[in-house]
């Protein structure tokens, strides 16, 4: 029987595997050293790799990501941690203006092989400045690869691909998934960037999900299965590259598409998925494309309010029933 680990443990395991393999991999961020990270996602790394390769920084997001960039341009592979994805706004210049443009605006002279990891998403009652799902911010920037795993094995496999990539990668770890468990990954496990996974096969409706919405989609699919409906769940795993081939193939089978995303409906990634399907898969569809996304309000604090704003299994089930009845 395979070993089971948590999503949280998979983060440090994935980083450690790459650091053992490649001495040029280093980590920097706030509290990531002896403290092991505020989410304990770097636990054990300081003890194994020491203070030269696991660097605690001050609360200086521009220095963290800006220095990671300079190091990446000069022969090191940094893995920078921004504690909460909301704080990406404090260093957004680097992620919007500097890192993703460097290769292009130098005519291909410079590469920036780095990973910025960050804890994303809501559901834990952290309020409006520590709960946002901001993967759609990253999607709006040409030149960034955007990864958001849903399972521990994918955390390990996608970290391997991200750290080895010569392109800059923004790696979203979902706070609501840290305690979730799954099979660990075998040695050498690598999940190529831009390959979606069919998390559950089905023929009646396609649910496209990412990170936290994958378990929501699977739970909803289970509920509908009791009524004889076979839903297919596609876990995108990455937003850039976006595996539209897998989505279109699934829609070709089911003719119905529901997209479940935690970022706001307005400007959310589901709009891009829907746009491509409408453009290239219109004749595959027997019903309108539907989206379950966050409401366009700041994330509220109280559970009862937060549930109103972000996707829940109940909302996914309701949307599926409506779509199947069309």
């Amino acid at each position, binding site marked *: 029987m395979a070993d089971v680990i948590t999503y949280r443990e998979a983060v440090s395991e994935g980083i450690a595997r790459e650091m053992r393999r490649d001495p040029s991999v*280093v980590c920097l961020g706030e509290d990531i050293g002896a403290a092991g990270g505020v989410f304990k996602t770097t636990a054990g790394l300081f003890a194994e790799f020491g203070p*030269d*390769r696991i*660097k605690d*920084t*001050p609360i*200086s997001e*521009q*220095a963290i*990501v*800006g*220095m*990671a*960039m*300079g*190091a*990446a*341009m*000069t*022969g*090191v592979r*940094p893995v920078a941690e921004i504690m909460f994805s909301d704080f990406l706004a404090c260093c957004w*210049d*680097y992620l919007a*203006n*500097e890192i993703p443009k*460097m*290769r*292009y*605006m*130098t*005519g*291909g*002279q*410079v*590469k920036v*092989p780095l990973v910025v990891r960050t804890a994303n998403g809501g559901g834990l009652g952290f309020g409006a400045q520590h709960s946002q799902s901001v993967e759609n911010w990253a999607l709006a920037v*040409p*030149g960034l690869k955007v990864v958001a795993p849903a399972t521990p094995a994918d955390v390990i496999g996608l970290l391997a691909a991200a750290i080895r*990539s*010569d*392109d800059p990668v923004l790696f979203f770890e979902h706070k609501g998934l840290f305690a979730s468990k799954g099979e660990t990954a075998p040695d050498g496990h690598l999940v190529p960037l*831009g390959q979606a996974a069919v998390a559950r096969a089905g023929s009646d409706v396609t649910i496209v999900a990412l990170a936290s919405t994958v378990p929501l989609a699977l739970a909803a699919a289970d509920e509908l299965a009791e009524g004889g409906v076979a839903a297919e769940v596609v876990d995108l795993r990455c937003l*850039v*590259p*976006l*595996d*539209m*081939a*897998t989505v279109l193939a699934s829609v070709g089978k089911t003719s119905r598409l529901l997209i479940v995303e935690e970022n706001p409906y307005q400007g959310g990634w589901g709009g891009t998925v829907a746009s*491509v399907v409408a453009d290239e898969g219109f004749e595959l569809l027997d019903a309108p494309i539907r989206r379950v996304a966050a409401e366009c309000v700041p994330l509220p604090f109280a559970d009862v309010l937060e549930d109103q704003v972000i996707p829940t299994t109940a909302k996914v089930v309701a949307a599926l029933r409506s779509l199947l009845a069309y």
Partner: protein
Amino acid sequence: MAVDIGARDLLGLYEQMSVIRGTERAAHDLFLAGLVKGTTHLAAGHEAVAVGASFALRPDDYVFATYRGHHHAMARGATPAECLAELMSKRTGVCKAKGGSMHLTKASAGMLGSYAIVGAHLPMAAGAAWSAKLRGSGQVAVAFFGDGATNIGALHEALNLAAVWALPVLFICENNLYMEYTPIGSVTAVAHPAADRAPAYLLPAEVIDGNDVAVVADAVRRAAARARDGGGPTVLEALTYRQFGHSRTDPATYRPAGELESWLARDPLELARQRLADHGVPQADIAAADARAAQVVAEAVAAAKAADPPDPADALTDVWADGGSAWRT
């Protein structure tokens, strides 16, 4: 101050400055002729900072510059022809005409970019210095920045962390008195916008004559040696003056009467000529250096004018490591 560069080296530095000055004038003229689009931020007047620093650095050291960075690109080895071709949107441009005036980069010469978001590159230089330290390469990294960058947070984050990690990085401010159109002194709490901030991070700092190539070379050589020896970062504030306006749309009418003239009297090329004369270098040798520089610039202008425009298909290359720009399957 002990500043001593031999006559032969000094003449070489003079000729480099003469090439840069000629190229900047050519860029100005080509802009007025409609052959350079967008904008340019000319560095005429700043040549001694780039040339003096480059002379004091190793070829494998790293340089990060600003959107006013033509002089740094050329001082590190970008040719006037490839710089002008970049400004003129030609495929032979140093960045294949994808970057433009504000982003001249010559990575193969350690010139790792010109950055147009003020102050953003200071943490990058610190990061390159961290990388050098991790690799034990003995390289130093240098961030050149304007006085305007001294009031942005990235500078302070970089100075602090570079100090804490004792990184081999030099922070060199080209203080030309103006933050775009506004006198830096009118918006800054300290008299020396860079040097006066260094003590807050327990970093050594010097205010130097940025128009004297020998003074710059000497200060950078000492700071680089300290950095390579594990002594950490240094802040240098080089006092200089831009002889054109901030950018192409700025006639610089905000300058008080007589200010430009007083700085022109201390033009970096004029100061170098005086030093050469003090070394006993014949006027004819100086004139010959100017003539060679003028020839280089003239040939660069001709080559850039003759070069082809970019292939339109190249708009969709160089985003990813695979050379392409695909974002989906």
